[in-house]
């Protein structure tokens, strides 16, 4: 049972990281990234390739940096024109990454992928308890990223992003460098997606293109919508509940012998799609509200009517 629990923790941790990243990009800054899976895959493969020569930590950092760099380039290219184009460019990016992974076998190992990826602190603990340690590592990683992103969202930087999301012209009239702010937000999200890819690689120790399907993008959007756009706490709840719900469908497979693996995967993704649509219509504001600075943060005696 423990093994199953650690797996669940790590899976939730990966999707939480991806969700936190998308929340910065879309929830706070209003930038639609339909190529989430491309950045996660890029993070995973960079880590897998660089971990042997450089060690797991420098590989993870480089993966995050590379994803941030590519996010900057893509964001700068399309945001100059109009938000809708970023969605189209990112969906293209996701697709191109998938094709390169499959066909550039000299680098990525093609369909076979890359195996025995070195794992963090591998000699710290006997192999039997390693998964438990990795689950702890995953939780610590999520905690660190959460604190960093929550600080950013609650800081003047987050406030400026929310202003740009609400009305970019007014933000510019108040002297805010709109394009620079958006590119920074998109790059921050990209870096966190790269880290999520790294964690994914450390957990599975072997990666191949089939692990990076559009379900990762769908999970992220569902988690952000369910959690409440702009709210990192809400996002954690969202990511957690979705993952638990979907893992529950695993037991569904045992209950209904008739459903095979493919159908189960289809059912999950279809339910996620339905969930995205229903949530957008019925509960657009999501679980938790966006964090806002209240008057009594500064003036405890403020008896304003909230």
């Amino acid at each position, binding site marked *: 049972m423990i093994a199953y629990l650690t797996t669940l923790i790590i899976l939730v941790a990966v999707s939480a990281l991806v969700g936190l990243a998308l929340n910065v990009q879309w929830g706070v800054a209003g930038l639609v990234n339909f190529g989430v899976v491309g950045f996660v895959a890029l993070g995973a493969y960079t880590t897998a390739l660089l971990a042997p020569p450089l060690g797991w930590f420098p590989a993870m950092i480089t993966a995050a940096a590379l994803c941030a760099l590519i996010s900057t380039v893509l964001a700068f290219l399309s945001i100059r024109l109009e938000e809708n184009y970023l969605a189209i460019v990112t969906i293209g990016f996701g697709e191109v990454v998938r094709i390169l992974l499959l066909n550039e076998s000299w680098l990525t190992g093609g369909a076979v992928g890359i195996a025995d990826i070195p794992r963090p602190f591998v000699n710290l603990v006997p192999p039997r308890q390693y998964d438990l340690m990795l689950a702890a590592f995953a939780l610590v990683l999520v905690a660190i990223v959460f604190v960093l992103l929550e600080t950013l969202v609650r800081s003047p930087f987050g406030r400026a992003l929310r202003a740009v999301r609400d009305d970019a012209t007014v933000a510019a009239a108040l002297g805010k*460098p709109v394009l620079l702010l958006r590119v920074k937000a998109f790059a921050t999200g990209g870096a966190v997606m790269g880290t999520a890819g790294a964690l994914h690689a450390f957990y599975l120790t072997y990666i191949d293109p089939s692990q990076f399907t559009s379900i990762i993008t769908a999970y992220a959007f569902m988690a952000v919508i369910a959690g409440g756009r702009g709210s990192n706490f809400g996002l954690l709840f969202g990511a957690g509940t979705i993952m638990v719900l979907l893992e529950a469908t695993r037991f569904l497979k045992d209950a209904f012998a008739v459903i095979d693996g493919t159908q189960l995967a289809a059912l999950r993704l279809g339910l996620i799609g339905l969930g995205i649509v229903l949530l957008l219509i019925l509960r657009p504001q999501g679980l938790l509200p966006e964090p806002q600075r209240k008057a009594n943060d500064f003036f405890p005696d*403020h008896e304003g009517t909230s």
Partner: protein
Amino acid sequence: MTALLEVRDVSKRFGGLAALDHCSLSLKRGQVTGLIGPNGAGKTTLLNVISGLVKPDNGTVHFDARDVTGQPMHRVATLGLVRTFQIVRELGGLTVLENLLLAPFHQRGEVISGALFARATVREQEARHAAKARDVLKRIGLWKLADHSASALSGGQKKLLELARVLLLEPTLVLLDEPAAGVAPPLLKDIIELIRELKADGISFGIVEHDMHLIGAICDHVHVLAEGTNLISGSFDEVTADARVIDAYLGLGV
């Protein structure tokens, strides 16, 4: 050259229509200057060109003796030349207080490194800005609604909030685009009062407006625009007595 803002020979065409046609005028430091004229005279286009929202086809704009022609709006704003919008645009996702905290320039917390690693400075700056914001909100009677989302305010309150937000930028020159439009008389009195006080504090104003009562009440100097160019300038009384202005207004053409 005491002129704070110098617009020389600015033209701007949208498709066939010449919104601005070799328009030249200047705004003096410490004065409230009115920009009036019939619909379609190019008033708002001129304001958009000066503030950097729109690039002129030709001509130059100098602010504080610096050439700002064609500079993007966010850079022009940080030089102290700020503007409001004809149709009020409040930032709905932010609270009333946050709308004001957003205003000040070069906040240490608005860059990632500052937000993460200079938390003390950021906290100190936020407290200072919050104190200033509270004073302004109390002055315009919105302090009680500080935690309300800006989208919940009434039309008039949103206009006051936009004015307050601009003041926290500590500007040198404020361009107001029809501040009186859709504002009830009692509120109009508050706006006039506020502008007078700020003028006393040394802030200069440029006001595009149709409400002659407001223009007559607070403008030291008035430029009359017609068909994209500066028809005549002078005090409100001189200008409104001039036959050409009445003709322009009544549409007899320049």
